């Protein structure tokens, strides 16, 4: 190896050494994998579609394969092919509501119904279902949300509750997109029945162990009914 080669090797390694900090800085520019050419989440903005939404709406008047068998009471709350009775006050005749749950309601269903009711219904209908939800109290000036303890709604078939959740009613919007699973809507309907029963039930059916909560008012009123969901019970006191 002559002296020239040694010099070149030395210069090369010096250049390499000096460029090391540069490499470190380059490592900071990680745009390659950080931002990939894909729709990275369902709410990503799209430059392709005019409405800038990357998630697309289903084509109107179409039904995906396997979606909503229209005549099944489980999906509609209606008696299939029933004729005659018009039930809604919005002028839309939808058919006749079933008055039986399309499956055997278990305690699991009631608990699920309670949780779903407290999330989606209680802001307006209140945790008791009396129509005194926080949002309704604060702002519903023209029309109050339904009170489930009226005679009309106690006598109402369960299919009606399912239908109202699915399609909306009066000023209430459809909750089909919020509660996409029909089972959850049935569970809510079942829980509405629980609430109705709770307000009509005689004292004799209250278990002895819970009697104290009813008779002692005040101090322990942090409401055990929906334990574990504090801001639906405390009403969001500030």
């Amino acid at each position, binding site marked *: 190896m002559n002296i020239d080669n040694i010099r070149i090797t030395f210069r090369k390694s010096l250049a390499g050494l000096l460029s090391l900090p540069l490499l470190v800085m380059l490592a900071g520019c*990680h745009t390659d*994998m*950080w*931002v*990939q050419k*894909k729709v*990275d*989440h*369902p*709410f990503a*903005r799209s430059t392709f579609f005019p*409405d*800038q*939404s990357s998630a697309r709406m289903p084509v109107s008047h179409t039904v995906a394969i396997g979606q909503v068998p229209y005549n099944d009471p489980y999906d509609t709350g209606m008696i299939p092919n029933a004729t005659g009775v018009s039930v809604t006050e919005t002028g839309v005749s939808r058919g006749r509501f079933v008055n039986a749950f399309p499956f055997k309601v278990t305690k699991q269903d009631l608990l699920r119904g309670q949780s779903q009711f*407290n*999330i*989606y219904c209680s*802001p*307006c209908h209140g945790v008791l279902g009396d129509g005194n939800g*926080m*949002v309704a109290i*604060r*702002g*519903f*000036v*023209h*029309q109050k949300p339904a009170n489930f303890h009226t005679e009309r709604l106690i006598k109402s078939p369960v299919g009606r509750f399912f239908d109202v959740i699915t399609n909306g009613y009066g*000023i*209430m*919007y*459809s*909750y089909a*997109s*919020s509660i996409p699973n029909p089972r959850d809507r049935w569970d809510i309907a079942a829980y509405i029945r629980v609430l109705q029963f709770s307000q009509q039930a005689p004292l004799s059916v209250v278990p002895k162990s819970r009697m104290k909560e009813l008779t002692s008012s005040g101090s322990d009123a942090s409401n055990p009914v929906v*334990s*574990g*969901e*504090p*801001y*639906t019970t*405390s*009403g*969001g006191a*500030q």
Partner: protein
Amino acid sequence: MAQVFKPSANHLARLSLLAFVIIPGGLVGAGIAVSRSPWNTNVNVPLNQPVPFSHEHHVNELGIDCRYCHKTVENSPYAGMPSTHTCMSCHSQVWTNSPLLKPVRESYKTGVPLVWNRVTSLPDFVYFDHSIHVRKGIGCDVCHGQVNHMNITFKAKTFFMAWCLKCHRDPAKFIRPKNQVFNMEYRYPPDQSTLGKELMISYHVHKNGLTDCSVCHR
């Protein structure tokens, strides 16, 4: 001519060698400080939004559950942003003439979604899944902070990988009963270390593999 450098300059020369340590050290330290500063991480920096939505008002004052709007958080990788339909399910009745809500009404009329500015963003090579965390007892506030007290929403944590690993290496410190996941005011009990271990067993959270690369990256 007098000497420019006195003998004591020898000490200074030796001391100046320290600069070789201090300057690179300082540069590295400054780099770390900058990368962890809110300037880089956006932690505690409220973002401007098309509508000045207040979680403090909706969650804390009105008591609306997280899932009323972030409805897919239990079943999907994405918590979900509310559609305009969801906003209007109350705001067709409440605050109907507010100029602040004009973009919402416009969006409902035209079908063009509101463009919210993303508060929390992960690199595209991270495959985070909300549903598994929620179902295994990791509360919203562990990662998002007390959103229920934010007027304009901001990022509460850095979302650095080291920060994720803090929990993935020792979930017992952070896991809580499932019915407390959406409780934004949850306080860990003093016996969290034992409770956490019990919950890990009953929720089938296995520490082995939680730090495997493929858990989050693929």
